[in-house]
């Protein structure tokens, strides 16, 4: 009796204490490993990761397979395979590249043989973009249309677009359900072996968010690890001064290491604007007529052809345009404040210096990072 008198209260006390302890969790069968993005020094700390798709190691692994697996088209015949990587090629900074053997001039075409409306955009540091994906930013987090808010939705768009993968989502999910190894990967990433298209979207989006470039010569210069040469340094000064080349207000610099604001501007290429898919198509604001996203200049040397319509084939042509080829119009953005003079008027040496600086934004480790590259084989040993 006496022993019971002591044991019972002690037991009760302990059990009540433990019951109230906030750390005790029921054991879960599905426990993916969180994937942490290491934020490079000076980069924004806010990341565009939707709440319903947290990054996990398993999700990223699955996403990488799907990104590269040509069967994402829902077809298995060799001439009908297409995946993200068909157009988004790592060695070209996830653009097609102007020397792409399949797409001459870098002009990509969908499985139906029709070219995309605009040329490619790269996949660099997209996890920091909150203002809009696509040249006109038609996919953005606050979009009233819940189906056009993030990279997940871009996966759907790319897979179903006639002039891209031209796929059928039911057929695609059934195909992956039947491929040995994939259901298990879905299980580990999302807690269910049943393949859904939503989970295909989520996995690929997770992988795309890992594609981070922060190791260019310029990054090393900022970290004090490497020195820029005279020409590059002079180019940098030109890049960041209004009386120089005046690029930084839209394309960033040391204080904005993304080298873009992810915002939309009319940069003075034309006087007549007829593209039905410019920024104006999204906002309906007159100031957005002929406006497109200022792309990041990281790895830009691999991202020809340039501008949304691919009108320039080389960086030299782009610099000539900003130097003396601008066109004034009511819609040109005020930040193009040299427009009335036709450009910023650089000397040949200044042009060379500016290009040399822009090339310090080249990040070879990004172009070759094995974590971003095509897996040696797919889960069913298919290559």
């Amino acid at each position, binding site marked *: *009796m006496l022993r*019971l*008198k002591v044991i*019972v*209260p002690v037991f*009760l*006390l302990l059990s*009540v*204490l433990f019951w*109230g302890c906030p750390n005790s969790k029921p054991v879960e069968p599905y426990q993916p490993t969180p994937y942490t993005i290491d934020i490079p020094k*000076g*980069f*924004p*700390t*806010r990341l565009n990761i939707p709440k319903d798709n947290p990054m996990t190691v398993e999700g990223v692994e699955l996403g990488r397979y799907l990104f590269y697996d040509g069967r994402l088209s829902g077809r298995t015949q060799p001439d009908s395979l297409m995946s993200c990587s068909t157009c988004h090629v790592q060695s070209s900074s996830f653009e097609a590249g102007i020397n792409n053997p399949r797409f001459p001039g870098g002009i990509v075409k969908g499985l139906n043989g029709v070219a995309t409306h605009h040329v490619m955009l790269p996949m660099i540091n997209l996890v920091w973009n*909150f203002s809009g994906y696509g040249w006109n930013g038609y996919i953005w987090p606050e979009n009233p249309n819940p189906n056009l808010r993030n990279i997940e939705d871009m996966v759907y768009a790319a897979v179903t677009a006639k002039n891209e993968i031209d796929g059928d989502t039911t057929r695609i999910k059934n195909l992956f359900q039947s491929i040995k190894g994939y259901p298990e990967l879905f299980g580990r990433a999302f807690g269910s072996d049943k393949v859904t298209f939503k989970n295909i979207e989520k996995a690929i989006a997770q992988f795309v968010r890992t594609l981070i470039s922060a190791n260019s010569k310029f990054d090393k210069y900022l970290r004090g690890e490497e020195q820029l040469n005279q020409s590059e340094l002079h180019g*940098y*000064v030109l890049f*960041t*001064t*209004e*009386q120089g080349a*005046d690029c*930084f*207000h839209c394309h*960033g*610099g*040391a*204080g*904005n290491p993304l080298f873009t*604001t*992810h915002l939309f501007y009319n940069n003075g290429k034309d006087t007549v604007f007829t593209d039905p898919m410019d920024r104006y198509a999204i906002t309906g604001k*007159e*100031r957005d007529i002929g406006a497109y996203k200022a792309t990041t200049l990281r790895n830009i040397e691999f991202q020809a052809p340039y501008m949304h319509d691919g009108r320039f084939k080389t960086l030299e042509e782009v610099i000539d345009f900003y130097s003396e080829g601008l066109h*004034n119009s*009511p819609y*040109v*953005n*005020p*930040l*193009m*404040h*040299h*427009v*009335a003079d036709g450009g910023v008027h650089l000397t040949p040496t200044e042009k060379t210096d500016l290009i040399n600086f822009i090339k310090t934004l080249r990040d070879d480790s990004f172009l070759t990072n094995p974590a971003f590259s095509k897996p040696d084989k797919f889960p069913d040993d298919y290559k």
Partner: protein
Amino acid sequence: MKFYKYLSIQLLVILTAVVVFQSGCCTGKPPEPVPPAGYLYLSFQHVVDGNPIVFDTMIYQNEAGNPYLVSEIQYFVSDFTLWKNGQALLLDKDEDIHYVDTDIPKSLYYSPSDNIYEGDYDSLTFVFGITEEKNRSFMFVNPPESYMFWPEHLGGGYHYMKLNGKWRDTNEVVQPFNFHLGIGQTYDAQGNITGFVQNYFTVHLPASSFKIVNGLTTKAVITMHVDEWFKDPNTFDFNYWGGHIMENQQAMRAAIENGHNVFSIKFE
């Protein structure tokens, strides 16, 4: 019977102990008595010639006679300070740099997190831009503030303001202007930078006495009179100064001198 009665008493004691223990550990110490205090809620509006600004439309004319339009205004205000009998009370101490952007509705409101002791205050002042002590490069890593960076080469830190628009020049050509203010530079005859000039200034608001009442929020509207940037004492002529002034301390100086009466305040 006796045992169960004993058990229920024990249980009661234990449960009470647990409740006291747990609530003590979760909510911390009993709250200290709070002196009566209220809050301040500031909103920012922008007017031209006394009327709410209309963007992207060439309907304005400045003191120099330049027809102009404004596309957007982006700026920092900082060091909000309340004054009472000559004593200063700095709000929000370290996070007191507020970014205003006419394209971002939520930036048009600022509520200092400090609660403010009840009483009558004589005036409110703030700094236009960021003081030398606080204007450190790389302190803002997140947009939109990070987009305001001022190039290292020109003095570093952040733009105080980007006021972007267009004016019609003497040849009837519509040209963009970037009325950007920040750290200025001095140059030698060869055009090399020899030093930097801090251009921020303290804004003293006329008629800014107000009352803070316990538990209540005092609201005030801070108005930027955009046209005042271009006059009094200096008539700012775009045809003379051109569309970009970041590397032109004389032009920035003229603008800053005009800044003294650009802002006004009204308590609700």
